[in-house]
C-alpha cells in the first residue's frame, strides 16, 4: 500500500509540474507573462496564426453547412450550387479551402520551429504531445474534407488512401495483419466508397474532429499559458516583452495581415485552379480513373515516397516518424539546440523539396507522371 501511495503521489507531482494549476490566475496568465525577444521570436506567432486559420475554417465551414448536402447524389451538385449560384459562395468556399492549406502550413512550421527551439523539453511534454495530436488531427481534417465535394479527384484519392491503409496489413505480424483491413472497412462503411463513406467522413469532418480539436486545443493552450513562452534559445538576450498588451497586439496585427492576404487570394484565385478540370467532374463509378489523381499538397511528403519506394519501406518510415514525433521529449532530451536546428532544417528541406519537386523527381526516376 505505501508503495502504491508513493506511486500515486509521484504521478500527481509529475502532473502538477506539467500542468501547474497554481499559476492559473490573472496575475500569472496576463499581467506577468513575458515573451522572450531573440532572433527566433517570429516563431512565437505561428501557433496563434494556426489558431486563426482554424477559426476561419470553423466560421466558413459553418456557413457552408447551410447549403452542402452530404449525399452521393447531391454532394457535388450542392458544392457546384454554392460556387455558381450562392452570392459570394465561391468566396466562402475558396476561403475555407485556402484557410485549410494555410492552417496545415502554419501547423507544420509551428511544429518544426517548436522542435528547433527545444520547446518540448521538460516540463512542456503535455504541450508537445497535445500539439503532435493536433498535427495529426489537422491532417485528418484535410483527408476527410477532401472527399466531401464528391468529384473524381476526391473519391479516387480517397480510394488510393484507403487501399494504402488496407495494404499495410501484409507487413504486420500475426493478428495485427488484419487490423488495417478492419480499419479500412470501418472508415469505408461498405464494399466500396459510397454513401456510407461520405456520411462517415462528413460526421468526422463537421462534428467529431472539431470536438476533439476543441478539447485537445484547450489543453494545449492551457498548458502554454501556464508555462509561458519557452525560452527558445541557448543564449537568452535578456530582452523580453509583455505578453499583454504588446505581444497580443502584434499577434492581432499578424492575424489582420494574414486575413487580408487570404481574403485577396480567396477572392481572385480558385483553389481548384491547380488541377485539370476533368478531375472536378462528378465521380463516375463506371469509368476509368482520370489521370492526375493526387492527394492535397500536404500529403506529398508521403505520397511521392509511396510512388517511388517499396511500400514496406514507406510504412516503416511513417511508423518511425509517428513514434519519434510522440517520443520527441524523451528521445531529444539531451540534444543541444544547434543540433535540433540542424535536424529541423533537414526536415524542412525534405518537405519543401518533395512538395515542390516531387512530380519532377518522379519523372526523373520513373519517367512519366505519377
Amino acid at each position, binding site marked *: 500500500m505505501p508503495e502504491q501511495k508513493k506511486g500515486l503521489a509521484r504521478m500527481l507531482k509529475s502532473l502538477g509540474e506539467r500542468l501547474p494549476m497554481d499559476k492559473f490566475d490573472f496575475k500569472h496568465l496576463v499581467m506577468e507573462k513575458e515573451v522572450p525577444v531573440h532572433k527566433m521570436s517570429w516563431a512565437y506567432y505561428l501557433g496563434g496564426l494556426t489558431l486563426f486559420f482554424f477559426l476561419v475554417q470553423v466560421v466558413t465551414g459553418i*456557413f457552408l453547412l*447551410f447549403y452542402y448536402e452530404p*449525399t*452521393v*447524389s*447531391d454532394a*457535388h*451538385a450542392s458544392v*457546384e*450550387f454554392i460556387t455558381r*449560384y*450562392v*452570392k*459570394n*459562395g465561391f*468566396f*466562402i468556399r475558396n476561403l475555407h479551402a485556402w484557410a485549410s492549406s494555410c492552417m496545415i502550413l502554419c501547423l507544420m512550421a509551428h511544429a518544426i520551429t517548436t522542435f528547433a527551439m527545444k520547446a518540448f523539453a521538460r516540463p512542456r511534454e503535455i504541450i508537445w504531445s497535445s500539439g503532435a495530436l493536433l498535427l495529426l488531427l489537422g491532417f485528418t481534417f484535410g483527408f476527410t474534407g477532401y472527399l466531401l465535394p464528391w468529384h473524381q479527384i476526391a473519391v*479516387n484519392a480517397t*480510394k*488510393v488512401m*484507403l*487501399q*494504402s491503409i488496407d*495494404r499495410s496489413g501484409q507487413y504486420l505480424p500475426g493478428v495485427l495483419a488484419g487490423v488495417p483491413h478492419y480499419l479500412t472497412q470501418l472508415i469505408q462503411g*461498405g*464494399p*466500396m466508397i*459510397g454513401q456510407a463513406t461520405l456520411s462517415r467522413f462528413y460526421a468526422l469532418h463537421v462534428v467529431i474532429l472539431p470536438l476533439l480539436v476543441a478539447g485537445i486545443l484547450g489543453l494545449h493552450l492551457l498548458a502554454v499559458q501556464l508555462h509561458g513562452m519557452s525560452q527558445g534559445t541557448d543564449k537568452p538576450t535578456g530582452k523580453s516583452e509583455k505578453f499583454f*498588451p*504588446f505581444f497580443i*497586439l502584434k499577434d*492581432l*496585427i499578424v492575424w*489582420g495581415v494574414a*486575413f*487580408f492576404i487570404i*481574403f485577396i487570394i480567396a477572392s481572385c484565385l480558385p483553389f481548384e485552379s491547380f488541377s485539370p478540370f476533368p478531375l472536378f467532374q*462528378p465521380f463516375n*463509378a*463506371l*469509368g*476509368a*480513373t*482520370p*489521370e*492526375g*489523381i493526387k492527394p492535397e499538397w500536404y500529403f506529398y511528403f508521403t505520397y511521392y515516397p509511396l*510512388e517511388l519506394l517499396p511500400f514496406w519501406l514507406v510504412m516503416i518510415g511513417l511508423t518511425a516518424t509517428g513514434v519519434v514525433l510522440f517520443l520527441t521529449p524523451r528521445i531529444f532530451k539531451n540534444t543541444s539546440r544547434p543540433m535540433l536546428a540542424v535536424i529541423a532544417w533537414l526536415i524542412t528541406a525534405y518537405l519543401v523539396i518533395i512538395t515542390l519537386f516531387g512530380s519532377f523527381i518522379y519523372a526523373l526516376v*520513373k519517367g*512519366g*507522371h*505519377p
Partner: protein
Amino acid sequence: MPVDPKEDVDREERRVFLKAFGGIGAALFLLSMGTFEKIFGFFLKQDLTRDQEEHILSEKIQRLEQTAHEKKLELERLDKDYILVASLDSLSPVKGIYFIDYLMRPAMAFCDDDGFPIVLSAKCTHLGCTVGNIVDDKGDILCPCHMSRFSIKTGAPVPGSPAKAPLPFLGWAIIDKNKNILLTQDPHGKRQGITDMDKLSGSSLYVLKKYSEEA
C-alpha cells in the same frame, strides 16, 4: 522639473499602445465591413433566372436517377444469380465495357480474337484505382493513377509496373434469349458448353453469383 524616466517610458508605452490599438481597430473595421458584405450576401435568397433554375433541377434529377440506377444494381446483385454485362456482339477486343461486379467493384469485359469474352476486375491491384478500358497495340490496359499496365490476356502486370498482382478474372456465362445457359467459364478459365461462336451469336454475357461467392 526633471521627468522620471520610468514615467516617460510608461507614457511612451501608452502612446504606442493607443496608436496600435487605433490602427488595428480601423483596419479591423474596414476588414469587417468587407467581410460582412460577403457574409450577408451569402445568406440571401439566390436570385436565379428561369434558365438557371431549370438547369439546376434537371441536373439534380439526372444525378438522382444515376444514384437510383446504382441502388438498383446493388439490389440486383442481392436478388439475382446472374447479372447482365452486355450483348455478346457488343464486346470489343480493343475497348472494354465497364460494369459493376457482385462485390460492387468495377470490372470490364472485352472479347478475344475468337470472339469469346474476357472478363476481369478493373480494380487496380496496386492502390485500387479503376483501370482504363482501352487496349494498346501490345494488348495491355493502363491504370492512369500510377501507370501500372496489365495484359488483358493474362491479367498480369507488365514488369516494371507498380502493381505486382494480376487483375483477377471473373467467371461468366453466355445466356440466350430464352434464358438457356449456353457456355460458362469459371475464373480459372475452364469452359463448359457450346464453343461454336456462330451458335452463340445473338446471346448475352452475364457474370454469375456462384463464381463470385467461390472467389
